């Protein structure tokens, strides 16, 4: 598949997402409408503004779809926040996301010290680090310094973990 076709498919997907999102939001606004819509003449109720934005999203989705399908290529410029990556697309997602989700589930169960230690070791490993000493030192450094910073710097008690908490 040529790069242009691939980009066109991505743009079509973005257009469809924008369209779907706009329609979804528009539909949801009926759920929180208070009284009859009074329109612009005598003020706006809570649903009118989100509907306005939903309509904009629908319109922009349609424009992008039309531009892509009818061959008008979007102007691309050098960007500060679209950073091209040299690696394989999706590999970062596969490396980090399971770890992140696992960590978020583990914190309330295992507590800060155990879950963070496991997370840091795993994170260093997936980042390509294989030097055992560096992994151990980094883990101790990050876990301890964060604990001290949050506990004594910001007076925040980090999660203790349900399975370690003494039963009443």
């Amino acid at each position: 598949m040529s790069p242009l076709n691939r980009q066109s498919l991505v743009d079509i997907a973005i257009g469809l997402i924008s369209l779907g999102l706009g329609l979804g939001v528009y539909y949801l606004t009926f759920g929180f409408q208070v009284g009859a819509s009074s329109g612009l003449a005598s003020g706006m109720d809570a649903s009118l503004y989100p509907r306005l934005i939903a309509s904009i999203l629908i319109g922009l989705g349609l424009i992008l779809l039309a531009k892509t399908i009818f061959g008008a290529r979007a102007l691309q410029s050098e960007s500060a926040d679209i950073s091209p990556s040299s690696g394989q697309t999706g590999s970062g997602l596969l490396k980090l996301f399971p770890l992140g989700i696992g960590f978020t589930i583990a914190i309330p169960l295992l507590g800060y010290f155990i879950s963070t230690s496991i997370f840091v070791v795993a994170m260093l490993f997936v980042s390509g680090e294989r030097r055992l000493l560096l992994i151990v030192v980094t883990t101790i450094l990050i876990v301890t310094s964060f604990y001290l910073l949050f506990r004594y710097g910001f007076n925040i008690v980090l999660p203790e973990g349900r399975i370690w908490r003494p039963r009443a």
Partner: protein
Amino acid sequence: MISVLTDIQQFVGFTQLQYIVIGVILGTIIGALPGCGPMMGVTLTIPFTYYLDPVSSLALLIGIYQGGSFGGAISAALVGIPGTPIAAATLLDAYPMSQSGRASEAITLATVASWFGGCFGGIVLLLAAPSLASFALSFGPAERLGLALIGLTAIASLSAGSTVKGLMSGALGLMLATVGSDPFTGVNRFDFGLPELTGGLTFVSLLVGLFAISEMLVQLESTTPTARITEKVRFSTKCLWTLITDWGNYLRSSLIGVLVGVVPGVGGVTSAFLSYKISKDMSPDKEQYGKGAPGGVVATEAANSATTGGALLPMLSLGIPGDPIVAVMMGGLLIHGVTPGPAFMLTNAPMLNGILGIFLIGAFLLLPIGWLLLPVFVRILSIPKSFLTTLILALCIFGTYATNRELFDIWLLWIFGLLGYAMRKGGVPLSPLVIGFVLGPIVEESLRRLATISGNDFWGFLFGRPIALTCFALIAAMLIGPALSQMYRARSRAQSPE
């Protein structure tokens, strides 16, 4: 002037000075790391500013913004990778200088030029912000709506990718800002029955997820190795003489930086390249540009540092952020209940002067900090990438947790991380979303107030006000302009013989 100095003295004590110094040092370090930059620095710091007073938190954020804008030049000069996109123009001459054994000269010039540009931007900010805010005092909801939409449209149409995608991103930001309780009627919107969403989406989760987590995901895919710096780099005092010998370049580039910075959505990258081009055209040694011309480093660094002052001007005086980093800072102020803009100027003029003083002090401190700590900043480049990625991720997670001490915020962090990653891969700019999220409440409030006070003549009222009318004419020009230019180019291509 004396009252300004008194205000600065009142608001900038030893604590705030400490935060400025910490900010500049941290900002320079983060700015020097390829793939990070001032946006990442400000994003990672926002959660910790919850625990500071508004002036101290802004001192920290401004310091990071200033340090980060300069830090990118270090990696640009030494390893040929700009730490930040705004240092891309600096690379053109700083890297060749470094390759020919003049690394110390290149980085010192960048330090001196950043210092000069920052101070120049600070002085302009100090002089212009109160006047602009006084002018804006008469603004009503129509003008506020027009200005907010100008800021959003400019960033959406001038930032990355296509205008349509930029506008989509901005509209999504406006949409996300409506989550939670409606400020006018108290009706819950898009909360899906979750009590955690009643107060709206947490700004920190959105910001850190969108920028930092998605950047880390991209970094994990990158195969760029950690840099190895072998050359000894020291501050070269003889470069200070260029302030006298090349004063025109310093002054002109700083002026370009401030002027470009004031325009919403343009930013440091444009100012640096524009200034570089003008400096090259005006230099007698044109052919040296791109091969290691000191004037090229001066032009780009003075301009991008002066841009920071220009970008803060519309935020502090009009309440409209000029670039995404400033939008984040504005978000940081809103967290503390401080809403920048003309009303803030009227009620909190001493505090505004304090903030302006902080900017100037931060800019001034860049030179001594750069002078003393340059060898340390250079060594930072050798830190293993795996360590940095892990450290930044831990900061993201616990910084977000610290905001409300809720695990729900960490779940939001992953969701926005995923969204940011998808947007990057799809070529949708992230900045308009953040600006839309920050400006969302202002846009909605202005629109609804306008609808209430205009009675039956909404459009007549809206377009009957010259400033509002000018704003909407500019918005129309920004939206139609790129389409017309695209059509013209397509027509020219079709008409050309080949």
